[in-house]
């Protein structure tokens, strides 16, 4: 069958197997010459792609939940959606969640995903108490910060290259309501947006959507979304309107043409003009706050069958603004715009060897794939290199081996050391790991 990541680029003809019995999975791994695990294929590029894939689809059981501490043990194919469905009604929530619920636990760990609260609590990996991992030699180990801690640190963010995550223990956090108190702040330029970020640095959740089509003076025109869990215990605020989300479906593969700059500009304008006030407060359901894009099924198809890529970088805090301005200039020079541009401030880096977040700002932009955008990405890379930034592996489908090694310089050796220890034949490999010589 033909598979691809969320960006529909690249595509690969692959054989996909799945099983729930450890002994069968051990046999699958020991008989294969190369293999890569995958989950819901929500990574954008080629992190999860290979000719022979082990899908975690059948590893979808909930195993244990400690109602006192919130410690949840699940198999790696369980999705964040399923966890939310079962545990939000019981007053528990994911400690960290990416912008979509259609992600598996295995995928969340292997990409060491971040959410809107990274500046406060760090990545998903910080809440993983232990991992049951099937190593490339088919041996099964339980690893955590004490036992096999180096394997643990290589596996979180390890992009599927250290073995198959079978199970994990995740610490959930208690909540008293499924609602989020949301504050939306409008900014007219980058300075104002950055000021708002630092002013509200203590708010639990924060993320900004910015207009990518405004001219130079208005760079950074956008909306900063702030959120706190609504505390149902000490407030009774029924006057605030609660909105329901509705699902619309985008019809199958839009022709590539529809996504011209004009269309994008209109979309951005419409979205932006809805938020006319400088500051707006509302009470919204968790799904509207955390997963606004999940309301549109298959929105990735809007980019047409050639697919798209997300360019997500992080640049250290002191260079963030400069780098963003330069990236914008390049984007304008190329006459390109991004359908969605998301800006977020990260907190400190963690000790997981290939983890992406680093103290600074991260910007994510989506572009349809074509020769021009690929050239533009190369131009972006120069800026990222110059300002000491790096790209997020789970979004990548095109960076060069050389660029990758320069930007992950300080982390890559430790990862490779562990990788060669547990997988000396490089059995676990993806299109991406081959491209990046990982």
């Amino acid at each position, binding site marked *: 069958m033909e598979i691809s990541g969320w960006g529909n680029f690249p595509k690969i003809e692959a054989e996909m197997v799945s*099983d*729930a*019995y450890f002994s069968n999975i051990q046999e699958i791994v020991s008989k294969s010459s190369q293999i890569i695990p995958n989950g819901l294929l929500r990574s954008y590029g080629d992190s999860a792609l290979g000719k022979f894939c082990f899908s975690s689809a059948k590893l979808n*059981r*909930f*195993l*244990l*939940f400690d109602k006192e501490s919130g410690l949840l043990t699940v*198999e790696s194919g369980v999705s964040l959606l*399923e966890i939310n469905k*079962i545990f939000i009604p019981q007053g528990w929530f994911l400690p960290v969640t990416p912008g979509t619920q259609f992600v598996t636990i295995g995928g969340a760990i292997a990409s060491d995903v971040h959410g809107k609260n990274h500046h406060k609590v760090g990545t998903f990996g910080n809440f993983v108490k232990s991992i049951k991992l099937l190593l490339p030699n088919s041996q099964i180990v339980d690893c955590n910060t004490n036992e096999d801690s180096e394997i643990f640190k290589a596996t979180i963010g390890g992009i599927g290259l250290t073995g198959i995550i079978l199970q994990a223990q995740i610490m959930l956090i208690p909540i008293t309501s499924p609602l989020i108190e949301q504050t939306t702040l409008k900014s007219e330029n980058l300075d104002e947006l950055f000021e708002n970020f630092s002013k509200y640095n203590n708010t639990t959740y924060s993320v900004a959507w910015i207009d990518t089509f405004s001219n130079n003076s208005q760079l950074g025109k956008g909306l900063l979304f702030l959120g706190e869990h609504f505390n149902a215990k000490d407030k009774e605020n029924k006057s605030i309107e609660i909105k329901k989300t509705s699902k619309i479906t985008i019809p199958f593969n839009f022709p590539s043409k529809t996504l011209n700059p004009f269309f994008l500009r209109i979309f951005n304008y419409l979205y932006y003009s809805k938020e006319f006030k400088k500051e707006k407060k509302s009470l919204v359901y968790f799904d509207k706050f955390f997963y606004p894009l999940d309301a549109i099924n298959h929105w990735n198809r809007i980019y047409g069958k050639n697919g798209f890529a997300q360019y997500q970088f992080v640049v250290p805090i002191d260079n963030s603004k400069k780098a963003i301005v330069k990236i914008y200039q390049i984007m304008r020079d190329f006459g390109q715009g991004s359908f969605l541009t998301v800006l977020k401030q990260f907190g400190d880096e963690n000790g997981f060897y290939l983890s992406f977040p680093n103290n600074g700002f991260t910007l994510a932009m989506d572009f349809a794939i074509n020769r021009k955008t690929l050239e533009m990405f190369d131009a972006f890379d120069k800026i990222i290199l110059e300002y000491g930034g790096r790209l997020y592996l789970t979004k990548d489908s095109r960076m060069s081996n050389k660029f990758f090694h320069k930007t992950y310089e300080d982390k890559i050796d430790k990862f490779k050391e562990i990788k060669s220890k547990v997988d000396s034949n490089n059995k676990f490999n993806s299109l991406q790991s081959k491209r990046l010589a990982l």
Partner: protein
Amino acid sequence: MKDKKLANKRSCLILGGTSEIGLAIANKFAENGFDLILAARNYDEVQKNANNINLRFNVKTDALKMDILDVTSQNKLIDELQFLPDIVVFSIGLLDKGKTAEENFEIAKEIIDVNFTYSLNILNKFAALFEARKFGAIIGIGSVAGDRGRKSNYIYGSAKAAFATYLSGLRNRLFQSNVRVITVKPGFVQTKMVAHLDLPKIITASPEKIAKDVYKAFVHKKDIVYSLKFYKLLMLIVYHIPEILFKRINL
């Protein structure tokens, strides 16, 4: 068993608690508020399946070990039950790969034993307990393969035919005691049992579809259900093809 009467809550025992069809049926009953007991020979797996149902559906679950080919183990299962469930679902089965059963009597015997001989023994025990209680339901997963012998799987098919005849007699016997017997006859179902076969998509059902049909049959007090429904017509036709023609067909 501590209590042979009805439990406070409706409950269902799945024999074959690692069978994909059995688990889909378990989910369906759990979704409808039944407590679940799962039994299988692989205790680690059946335990995980029971925990999963407990956490997903917020019903009570229990996992027990039972090897169908061991009468002592069957007796032990009945001893270990905390109470007598309302329903017993039998979803254990063995299908050989290729022609092994034809050439090897040990394999043929194992197929007959798993699908029929030992099944009969455990179901007889529940039949007697339900009969005495004057309440209960036995749901047996047979197969369309039992409706007519075909060269591709007639040893498995003859065990399933015997199983269907057994269930039919059991239904007749238990009717007066308010105990119902449902025979389920699936066609192709996408499970690990047939993972090695290349099945035609349109006539292959998901385990969830079988479970839906089984639950419907339970609610509507049906005796025999084909799932997919299409197989009822197909098997009617297949059944009526004269042997003189049938023997020439490549099936």
